[in-house]
């Protein structure tokens, strides 16, 4: 198939960017979206132009590195996939595809489609852990039974890949699905209880500091999340936050 691509080009964080049109031809429907981008880049290199910079790594939907806003949606029109798992059969011959970086004040553009998501890391530094040293004398893994239901729910929250699609899709650029998922994982496990009060307060404070917007419960994040992280995690974080503040 032949396609017209409208791609955001921006040389560096300080420079102004703009949308630029490109044409690609003979794209197979079996290609992944990023392989289509590879074709474009090979074409650009061979004609002496600078290729389009975009983040990508594992190309199997788990590392969370790829991050494009395609035709108005994070990771494009398919559901439950990252951009690297999006296939060209979702598009038709002759289509025009608009490709932009994830947009949020807390995700500044570094180059073209590459954004800086280190704000996510800093939220995790604020409390995304359980304080346990590596000693070899930790208590036996089976010493504390955890109900299968809780363990499964914690796992569902923990499958977040930190790609930032929630922020990109949210009309407020809110990071609450991301933070809610981490808070929930630990809130559901006995190991997480000791630090629960400080964790949720510190992580939320850092989230606010980074300049993410506030959640207005549109649910866009849940729909666009490649891992299907549920809104229940935001509700759980709200509860945890409220009770943490009531406790002092």
């Amino acid at each position: 198939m032949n396609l017209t691509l409208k791609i955001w080009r921006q040389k560096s964080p300080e420079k102004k960017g703009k949308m630029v049109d490109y044409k690609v031809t003979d794209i197979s429907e079996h290609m992944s979206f990023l392989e289509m981008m590879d074709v474009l880049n090979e074409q650009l290199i061979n004609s002496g132009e600078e290729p389009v910079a975009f983040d990508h790594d594992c190309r199997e939907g788990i590392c969370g590195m790829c991050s494009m806003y395609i035709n108005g949606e994070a990771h494009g029109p398919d559901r439950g996939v990252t951009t690297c798992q999006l296939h060209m059969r979702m598009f038709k011959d002759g289509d025009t595809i608009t490709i932009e970086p994830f947009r949020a004040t807390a995700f500044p553009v570094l180059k073209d489609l590459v954004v800086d998501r280190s704000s996510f890391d800093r939220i995790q530094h604020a409390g995304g852990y359980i304080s346990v040293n590596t000693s070899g004398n930790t208590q036996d893994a089976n010493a504390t039974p955890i109900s299968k239901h809780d363990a499964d729910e914690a796992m569902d929250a923990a499958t977040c890949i930190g790609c930032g699609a929630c922020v990109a899709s949210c009309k407020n650029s809110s990071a609450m699905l991301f933070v809610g998922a981490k808070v929930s994982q630990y809130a559901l496990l006995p190991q997480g209880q000791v630090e629960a009060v400080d964790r949720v307060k510190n992580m939320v404070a850092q989230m606010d500091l980074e300049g993410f917007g506030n959640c207005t419960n549109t649910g866009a994040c849940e729909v666009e999340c490649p891992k299907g992280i549920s809104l229940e995690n935001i509700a759980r974080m709200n509860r945890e936050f409220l009770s943490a503040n009531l406790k002092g």
Partner: protein
Amino acid sequence: MSVLDSKVPKGPLKDKWTDYKDHIDLVNPANKRNIDVIVVGTGLAGGSASATLAELGYNVKAFCYQDSPRRAHSIAAQGGINAAKNYQGDGDSTYRLFYDTVKGGDYRSREANVYRLAEVSANIIDQCVAQGVPFARDYGGLLDNRSFGGVLVSRTFYAKGQTGQQLLLGAYSAMNRQIARGKITMNNRHEMLDVVKVNGKARGIIARNLITGEIERHSAHAVVIASGGYGNVYFLSTNAMGSNTTAAWKIHKKGAFFANPCYTQIHPTCIPRSGDYQSKLTLMSESLRNDGRIWVPKNIEDVKAIREGSKKPTDLSEDERDYYLERRYPAFGNLVPRDVASRAAKERCDAGYGVNATGEAVYLDFASAITRYGKEQAKIQGITNASEAKIYELGQAIVEAKYGNLFQMYEKIVDQNPYKTPMMIYPAVHYTMGGIWVDYNLMTTIPGCYAIGEANFSDHGANRLGASALMQGLADGYFVLPYTIGDYLSDDIRTGKIATDTPEFDAAEKEVKERLEFFTTNKGEHSVDYYHKKLGKIMWDKCGMSRNAEGLKEAMTEIKALREDFWKNVSVPGGANEMNPELEKAGRVADFLELGELFAKDALTREESCGGHFREESVELDGEQEGEAKRNDTDFAFVSAWEYKGEPSDAVLHKEELEFNDIELKQRSYK
């Protein structure tokens, strides 16, 4: 006497590690504050090592090329992690895990290292659970286990099909705690481009900031390489796009010996290539072979008809199918080890029986499993005279519960419903058992330079068992390196900060900058990928699943020629002082072009078949095992450690003889 000293402690196998730890030199807590350690790579090994070293009090400087440590490719591991916990009461023990791992590695790993690995395996699970890793549990709330290929017990812990992700996020969370304390300085989007040696010791690295292009000097008292494997030398592999050998190769060029580069694991169940544009291969968990039957058509006419689309695989009757694994290995059938299954698929496809357009695919068929489960369910639910459709429906539900996410992934990629038509699979490069040679302390042949995780060679021999990679990465990072590095660093308590304004750093930086400048100014005509794809093809065709002397010699010549062309004709757009993904790739492919040749040389030298390394000249000539791999313990029970001497073809071989005192060497048989 070999120049290699493995430093394996004396004494009985099961006491070695405990005794050694008890007598090792330690650094007191006050002094640890004055010692810096660089860790390159933040996967399971690097992440866990960074966190643990920082907990101990060292100042850790960690580096990764991704935008966050959480994205290291350990995250993609699906299946699970082994540990000798014996929670299932099926007689598992440290010894059994040790034995299985050595046997699985086709008796080419170092006994003492593997025993230590098995010993600390149980601690890993305790540690991860304490960190909040949500392993799968049974209804009693206790940890669940699954079993994996090649062993007789259930010892694999898992978190759905995302065990690697959860373990990595555990290590990442431990890192986060130390980053918040200021004990780890995290350098995201940084790539190590050289190691700096001062007075023969590793004292720092030169790194490039991938956002600004700035070349930075970082000093430390020790350098730990945890940069993973080199599977991307094949261009197509299940590795991440950015996975590379640069850090490992740079230390090799500065004096670290590279061991067993030819040991590569080719995983049998990956989604086949669909065309030349393909950028990477996707693994489907090995667990699929528990219920799937692998076949190709018996008649070449049917193969042609299927490729043309005039016949569908489901049109073929049982008689028209060749279940080649069941035919060749009646005892193990579809559950033969990874290397055997991969070679058998290649053999059929080379003979022209591949079932897709590229001729490189075989079927993995669930129809009989679905029918079998369906009948079982009908019986359980008391449905008599169930229609075929009903049985299929009941069976499909069971298969969906077991492998639903994998089937869904397959359908997303291939656009075929694997419940209706057999899946297509083909082997793909997955893991590299070879790597930087290390001693019992995990130190390389450069003093103060360590290699851990997939980057080193030590624990998997010639073939890695399923669910062992995660175990090794975390064992090295959490429980081995943090002890053994103290032995070396105890001599450094009076050294003080390592200065970076020294001639050694000047020289290393100059070399790095010159190379970058070459790339950005060279007026070539081919892209980096052009060379990478060519290299990949040579590797796959001549150093792939089966190798012979003639092909390996050709590979060496071809790779050398390709490398020379690369240095003349490569074209890299953009500059060095900005974010430039093509420039990053150029440096990595340049190193692959050297490693590839050493790989072929190593494979040529090893005139035996063992594990993932199959030499066509070394097969059983008669008897029941006719045509199967033949290991040669008399001449090749050693580790090949290569010393860099300029050109890869000039590398000098050093042998570390392998001694097996606690295990009897046997030929593997799956007939």
